[in-house]
């Protein structure tokens, strides 16, 4: 049985996104934190993803900080077995922080990244730090 680590999932997501997005980077400095992944989507939005195996409250806190600079911020967790029960638990926390949710899974060796809850678009991006982030991504 495959034991997934955060770094393993992170690399898999980067590979998936690279198929469709022009800019995808891992370990990206955002304000005083380091976001696991930042990419630009087809709507020209900057998206951050924080990957966690279990501590989703910490992931939300980190993603909330990223959201001060990117257009949308997500957390990504391994797809849980009892999805509905889990979603019931996490939904309010995500909503309060305007953070989106992704699930990563592997079924029969097939890697799958699913958007479960879309993140709200950040309306108040901190311009000075956004410039620093863009400079890093395009360097």
């Amino acid at each position, binding site marked *: 049985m495959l034991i997934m680590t955060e770094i393993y999932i992170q690399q898999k997501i980067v590979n998936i996104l690279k198929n469709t997005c022009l800019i995808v980077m891992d*370990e*990206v*400095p*955002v*304000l*005083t*934190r*380091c976001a696991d992944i930042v990419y630009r989507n087809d709507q020209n939005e900057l998206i951050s993803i924080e990957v966690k195996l279990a501590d989703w409250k910490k992931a939300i806190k980190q993603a909330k*900080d990223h959201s*001060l600079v990117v257009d949308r911020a997500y957390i990504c967790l391994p797809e849980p077995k009892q999805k509905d029960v889990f979603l019931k638990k996490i939904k309010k926390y995500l909503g309060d922080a305007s953070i989106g949710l992704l699930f990563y899974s592997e079924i029969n060796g097939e890697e799958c990244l699913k958007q479960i809850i879309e993140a709200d678009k950040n309306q*108040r991006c*901190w*311009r*000075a*730090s956004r410039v*620093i982030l863009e400079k*890093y991504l395009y360097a």
Partner: protein
Amino acid sequence: MPNHYIRFGTHAEKKFFYGIYSDYYDGIFINGNMLAYTPKSMVSFLLQINNDKRILIDPQTHAFQHDVDLIRNKKGVDVKSSLSSLAEYYGEPISTCLLNNTPAIPSVFTDEIMEKFCRNVGKFQLDTILNTVDGLEEKRYIDFAKEEQTVNDVQNITDIVAPYFYIESIDSPWIDLNIKLVNKTKEVFNNNTVIGQIVISAQLLNNPGISTLLAKYKTCLCDEYFIWIDGFSEDEQNTASLKNFIYFISELSKTNRPVTNLYGGYFSIILSKFLNGFSAVSHGLEYGESRKVVPVGGGLPMSKYYFWPLHRRIKQEMFINLLAANNWSDLSTNQDFENIICNCQSCKDIDKFFDSYPVKRGGRTFNYPTTKAKEHSLKHYLYCKKKEFEYITNTELNEILLELKKAHDTYSPQLDRGEVDYLLNWKNAIEQSLQILS
């Protein structure tokens, strides 16, 4: 007004002690290891300090009581060069301990060694700067400048911090040795102001046995006390710990000898308002309102913004949240920020606080502040500190305490739960202590 001392951290900070910044502080602390290792640089710096500033040298003798591994250089092979240089000045028993790769223990301080050690530590503080000046090629120009009073008369350094060691527990054998070292230093340097530096663990403050320690220090022969509570961040303490801290200072104050907190913030400045004898608060440039005893020096600090109403440095993320929550994001259209938070020159260019560059550390990449951003933030910090000392001097205690509550009530809903509860802890600790003290 309580005296405001600043600890010199790195040579890059020199400029924040001259010019307009001269008005911002009353005294300066120099770490002994820096003086021992770079005496010429330190002297050229000190000569440019205004004559009215008190100059104090921290002998850092505690550095030699820890596991030697804790004071090795980055390669982990040799003891840091600056501490080796310091040890050369101090001689026995420190030099032998370092040679044997063992930490100093109380039993190595025999009566005979103790006297010599105290003399060496004292002479290091009194003579190193003068001897360095004497050895400079520019000596005659300096003498001339001294006559013209355009450089600091470093002969003003007459105060001596007695050798001291960290006290972790109430039954520590270092307590009695520290007292002996203070008394011996006073015996040797009878005409100088001798300072007893008390360095204790934060847990010790909450130990009922602290009164025994206090009784011993109250009878020692020093002229002044410096205190350093290991890692004591005022904004991380509960009300009980803060009250014990107040008790500790108030007991020392009863001896009518001045007390200085070596690493303190706004809470300490407030205490000087009602604790007679609590005469000075010291801090580093931005990063030193609390300090752990080990490691001795080091650490890569992140740039933070000193948020006046909360009287503490906050992370960029928290600062942006507060700017957004109060509609201060566009400062060009909003005067509130200037009126409520800060009107210093740095705050007219908020973006500059965020200037950074990526640095890889531990396999991850983080933004580190540029030198310009650090300086920008430092200018703002020093401005706030000056304002705090003036505010405390000119404001009634009741009003100061009400401001703490007001800041808590204003910013608490905008931040994570419990983030600013320390403001209420400060207020409660002071009010409750005042009842006991009266």
